[in-house]
């Protein structure tokens, strides 16, 4: 038993007992008595970005391999490479030592995030590890003008791209003028590069100062630059979609017809096997695929992501240093091995073949992971998400009445949606698919969230009460039932039957969960046919306004005012009702007008981008209240580690946090600054 007590994450004797039970291979039911999850969730912690100049180091040290290259004249000295304003980090526990390799898994070229999150979080600004404060990252500092219209970014003196070329304002302006504003590369302006429909512009002040000029106050902008929202900002992940916010001008100009004759870029594209220069440009700017493109990430790819092993090596020009002046990262290489499927990836984690893996780990593998901790020399940590819906149901609020008036009538009825919600036994879902670790209830975020509307809203219309649900449905006039107990349509066309769409290949078994919900709805006489579709087809159905009920998750809604998954405010096929998004985008000129209450919530949402952060709290609460009261989405289970929150950490890895904030916004584990991880001697 002693072996368990060494682990700080496994607190309390009750868990030691359950740990032993797992070890003996007894059935999963053992978990139900003891909330296993709560024992594996440690305190949220992370490294500190040092802003106080008094704590800045005055001399610098570097990895032995780089020191050799300096000695041979291959590289300039470290103090020149980090520049005069390096980003100073106080590691979570201790100053580390150089060397070693970090092993991870990834699933192919479309899985760029795997590499970006661990080694390439190069957003202009960044959220701190707890996702509460905007901190400097690539830029040194930001400042609003008094009128709130001009955001000034200061860059770091002496900062360089990974090829040694200076990193300056020109790299921002090249992106703004020659990529973002260049019609042949960017077809339409981006919603988040504008406020209330009016575009913001970028200006060069000097080599190290760049300004964002907003036509109206846009207090949300720093958070967007820190990586929240759908506009990425960061060359490593968003270079390839041309949304990075900056780009290596000195390198990319040779592929751009504005700087290189059209015939030459066309010929270069043809020679490389691309159909046109744009395709070549996108290939060349792609951090994960093109090893030549300079970057400002702490590690940079040494083998591309479209090969079986994706390896990142340290960037000699990394701007990150610790408080003792050691240039970060400590760890030399990150090696990610291609898994042809997720089962293999999970089994490799069980076998201890990964040193720090949270992405793609399946919550249902938790018992096996725990069972093999000792043998694989790793510990399991859980990092629950801060958003309320790992699995929620989106009713189509714009379902066309000319397709099926009856279905449209019920989907747009608040009363009917409440009944559907009351017909779901969330505890059963939670026990079956989340091992009891999730939180059943409405889609609202965690209690600590600035927009948490209050305790009553977790359960309002989101408890299991089939009697009340039946009363509501009877009251709506759905009183006729067929021989099997299902309610009949009121237009006399047989049984009332909904199509319930799920996507294949999500982080949770969406289809199976939906099947269980459908089975639970039998008790309230509602039939739902679960239809699993391939994602591309699903997106088409959403864009075509053809779905009825749709299972999804609402990750990113913890940062409500940059998220598209709370209110239908986006035209993206990932959004609940793109037609309402269109209505919102065009100020009511096109699309479908939402019900009045949602319109009011949308107005608050719009207002949120224009008011300072401290005033956003009340707006956000009001928005969530509307969503819950009108059951805009039917929440099921959330606040769990199911999406990228089951983390396997090698026991020898230093400075790894017990809990990290799990969110795309902080580029988890990017917010924990893997640059500070190291191998203990």
């Amino acid at each position, binding site marked *: 038993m002693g072996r368990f007590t060494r682990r700080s994450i496994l607190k309390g004797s009750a868990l030691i007992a359950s740990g032993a039970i797992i070890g003996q291979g007894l059935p999963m039911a053992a978990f139900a008595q003891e909330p296993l999850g709560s024992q594996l969730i440690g305190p949220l912690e992370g490294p500190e970005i040092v802003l106080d100049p008094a704590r800045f180091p005055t001399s610098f040290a570097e990895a032995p391999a780089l020191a050799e290259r300096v000695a041979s004249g291959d590289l300039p000295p470290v103090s020149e490479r980090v520049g005069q304003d390096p980003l100073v980090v106080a590691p979570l526990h201790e100053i580390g030592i150089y060397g070693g390799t970090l092993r991870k898994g990834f699933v192919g*070229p479309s899985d760029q995030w795997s590499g970006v999150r661990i080694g390439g979080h190069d957003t202009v600004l960044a959220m701190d590890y707890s996702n509460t404060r905007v901190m400097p990252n690539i830029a040194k500092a930001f400042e609003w003008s008094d009128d709130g219209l001009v955001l000034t970014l200061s860059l770091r003196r002496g900062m360089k791209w990974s090829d040694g070329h200076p990193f300056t304002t020109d790299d921002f302006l090249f992106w703004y003028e020659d990529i973002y504003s260049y019609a042949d590369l960017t077809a339409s302006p981006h919603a988040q590069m504008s406020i209330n429909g009016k575009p913001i512009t970028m200006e060069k002040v000097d080599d190290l100062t760049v300004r964002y000029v907003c036509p109206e106050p846009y207090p949300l902008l720093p958070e967007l630059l820190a990586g929240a929202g759908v506009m990425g900002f960061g060359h490593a992940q968003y270079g390839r979609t041309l949304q990075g916010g900056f780009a290596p001008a000195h390198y990319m100009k040779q592929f751009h017809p504005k700087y290189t004759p059209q015939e030459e870029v066309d010929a270069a594209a043809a020679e490389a096997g691309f159909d046109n220069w744009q395709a070549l440009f996108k290939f060349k700017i792609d951090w994960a695929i093109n090893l030549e493109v300079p970057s400002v990430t702490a590690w940079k790819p040494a083998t591309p992501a479209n090969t079986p092993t994706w390896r990142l090596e340290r960037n000699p020009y990394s701007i990150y240093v610790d408080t003792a002046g050691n240039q970060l990262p400590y760890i030399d290489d990150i090696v990610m091995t291609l898994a042809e499927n997720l089962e*293999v990836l999970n089994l490799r984690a069980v076998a201890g073949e990964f040193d720090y893996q949270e992405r793609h780990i399946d919550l249902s593998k938790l018992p096996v992971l725990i069972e093999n901790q000792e043998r694989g020399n790793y510990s399991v940590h859980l990092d629950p998400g801060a958003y309320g819906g790992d699995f929620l149901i989106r009713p189509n609020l714009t379902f066309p009445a000319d397709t099926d008036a009856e279905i449209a009538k019920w989907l747009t009825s608040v009363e009917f949606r409440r009944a559907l919600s009351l017909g779901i036994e969330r505890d059963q879902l939670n026990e079956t698919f989340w091992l009891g670790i999730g939180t059943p209830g409405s889609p609202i975020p965690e209690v600590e969230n600035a927009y948490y509307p209050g305790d009553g809203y977790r359960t309002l219309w989101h408890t299991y009460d089939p009697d009340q649900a039946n009363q509501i449905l009877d009251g709506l006039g759905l009183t006729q039932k067929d021989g099997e107990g299902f309610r009949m349509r009121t237009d006399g066309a047989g049984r009332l039957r909904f199509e319930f769409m799920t996507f294949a290949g999500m982080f949770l078994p969406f289809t199976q969960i939906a099947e269980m919900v459908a089975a639970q709805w039998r008790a309230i006489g509602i039939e739902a046919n679960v239809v699993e579709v391939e994602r591309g087809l699903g997106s*088409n159905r959403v864009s075509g306004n053809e779905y009825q009920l749709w299972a999804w998750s609402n990750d990113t809604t913890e940062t409500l005012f940059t998220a598209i998954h709370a209110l239908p405010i986006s035209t993206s096929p990932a959004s609940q009702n793109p037609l309402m998004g269109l209505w919102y985008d065009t100020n009511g000129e096109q699309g479908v007008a939402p019900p009045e209450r949602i319109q009011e919530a949308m107005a608050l949402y719009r207002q949120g981008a224009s008011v300072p952060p401290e005033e956003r709290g009340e707006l956000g609460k009001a928005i969530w209240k509307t969503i819950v009261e009108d059951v805009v989405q039917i929440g099921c289970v959330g606040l769990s580690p199911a999406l990228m929150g089951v983390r396997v950490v090698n026991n020898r890895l230093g400075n790894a946090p017990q809990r990290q904030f799990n969110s795309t916004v902080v580029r988890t584990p990017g917010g924990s600054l893997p640059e500070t991880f190291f191998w203990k001697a």
Partner: protein
Amino acid sequence: MLSYILRRLLLALGTAWAISVLAFIIIQLPPGDYITTYIAQLAADGTTVSDAEAAALREQYGLDQPIYVQYAKWMGQVMRGNYGMSMEWGRPVADLIGERLWLTVAVAIAAIIFTWILALPIGVYSAVRRYSLGDYVFTVIGFLGLAIPNFLLALALMYFGYVFFSANIGGLFSPELVDAPWSGAKLWDLIQHLPVPAIVLGVAGTAEMIRVMRANLLDELNKPYVKTARARGLAESRVILKYPVRVALNPFVSTIGYLFPYIVSGSIIVSLVLGLPTVGPLLLRALLAQDMFLAGAIVLMLGIMTVIGTLISDLLLMWVDPRIRMGAR
């Protein structure tokens, strides 16, 4: 004779062309295209793409053109030996397939050898000792092998391989050798990793082959020439192996052609589960992502392999069986 071969060759060419057209159409059939998949993928990560951008992307990839134009463009490239660029991987299709093809062949050959080594002796034994205890035991085991889904066996073998032998999970190489250049050590590493996929892939085929061998041989065993041989006092092993087994092998030889496509396509699911870097998982992904050129090239390759295999089968049969040879004239 010569005209027959010529006719067969022409027919094969025509078939290959038809396959290329069909492949292209079938891959296009599902709604959406690579851009749809790409956008859905981005959406999952929180990035949105506007309709205007989507249209621009389609234009860039040439997906806005009618299907016959796309086909003509593709075929024009293929004729010049250029299989195009994979949309998802951003690499030439020929490179992607090339690096996986030899491993695919290695896995398939290992599986075939495993099957034959196991199935032929057992088949012979089962026929000669019909209704004996051994016959029943092998039959039961064989049918179990046939009944267990490949992927399940693969998963179980992988897990127990780790638990009991601390084997690497999935793949065909140890992690440290994946990117190493070919060497004796790497080859040895590959050979050590081959048994599991060979067993998983071979088990089902083994059962089938045992039954075929057994049935074929039973037909032969009662024929007069066997009795004659026995009457002449030949040793029993010689009686069995020299004549009836040889005859019973005929159907195997004539289906050798079908092995070509099997080498690539037979292992898709198992390769996926075992994480083998073979062509199968590549094809599946390409189809899911509607990565036209990659999927098209693989399907075309499979088709041509089948055509060549059938051609070889036909020629073999013609050579073996005079009745076909005569009929062809």
